[in-house]
């Protein structure tokens, strides 16, 4: 919240997740289609490495709601896809997510960098209004979500993706710290 102070020591204690481990988990989840608007949180650790990895097909889009539609449409024949973006793009895409993900019951899987989140704070405790409202907004929309911000957090990715496709519903991975570049 505004007014909370945090020392350099607090920040230094936390460790970021591994970009390589997240990418390996995406592959383990059979995700090969990546649709993305660049996000500074995930740029070095995820998007640049993915852009160079021939196992992925990267579709660069101009605006995030395009990606909601692309991923939803791909799912009709079982093609798995993930949309990478920042929380600002998530907020801008809520109507598309509402309609295409929730009401149409499509497995739109998203990975969202929380730009402006303090590395050592939970998103709900962030001084940034734009960060701390994200989980409550997702909850209000009954959207499944999980947090990836420490080494090992990525282990649940394959199971969460499988669950999203099995239930044909969206899932949002929130990236709380910039992943370490591979």
């Amino acid at each position, binding site marked *: 919240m505004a007014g909370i102070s945090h020392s350099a020591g607090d920040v230094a204690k936390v460790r970021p997740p591994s970009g390589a481990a997240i990418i390996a988990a995406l592959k383990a989840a059979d995700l090969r*289609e990546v649709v993305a608007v660049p996000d500074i949180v995930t740029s070095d650790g995820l998007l640049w490495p993915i852009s160079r990895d021939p196992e992925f097909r990267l*579709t660069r889009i101009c*605006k995030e709601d*395009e990606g909601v539609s692309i991923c939803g*449409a791909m799912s*009709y*024949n079982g093609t798995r896809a993930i949309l990478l973006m920042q929380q600002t793009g998530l907020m801008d895409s809520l109507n598309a997510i509402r309609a*295409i993900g929730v*009401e149409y019951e499509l497995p739109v899987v998203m990975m969202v960098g929380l730009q402006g989140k303090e590395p050592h704070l939970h998103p709900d405790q962030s001084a940034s209004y734009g960060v701390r409202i994200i989980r409550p907004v997702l909850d209000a929309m009954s959207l499944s979500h999980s947090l990836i911000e420490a080494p090992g957090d990525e282990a649940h990715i394959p199971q969460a993706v499988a669950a999203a496709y099995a239930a044909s519903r969206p899932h949002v991975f929130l990236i709380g710290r910039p992943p370490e570049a591979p």
Partner: protein
Amino acid sequence: MTLYRDAALKALIPHIRDDDIVVAVYQSCFDWLALNPRALNYVAVGAMGQASSHGLGLALANPDRRVIVLDGDGSLLMNLGSLVTIAHAGVANLYHFLSVNRVYEVNGAHPLPGADKVDFTGFARASGYAGVHGFGELAPFASVLPQLLSTAGPQFIAMEVRPGKPYPRDYAYIHSAQARAQFRQALNRR
């Protein structure tokens, strides 16, 4: 110069293959559903402006099928960036038809901003589509369709149209689970 939308869509029907996917929105969708009901009509685009992006997703995931998008001008204005995305993706199997009537037809027929100036073919050309075409009369439109649909995409076809017969607006169907299930079943049949 008159091209009625239903006449344009009727001219398109003979060129649609059984395995083509047709993504249609708003009044083009209602007209198309009345004129050519088929299981591979994709009608659930959810949010206004998203037809072209659904079409891109379908084209990428189904490279062995043609994807025909029947878009509207008001809709496209909400997602102009998708023109750049589609052109950059280079989907050779996507054909983007645009009904240009310069009004928000199903929302009270209010004029588009810049209705008397906007050049949709200019947008598509500047975005880098493989081919860009504009028609305001039926005969040239109908005669070019066979060649156009056998040319590698993405192709953009603007149709300056007037409304035709008033086909019923069945919103309940286009948002229905039945429509989505029917499409999914047909897509995965083979």
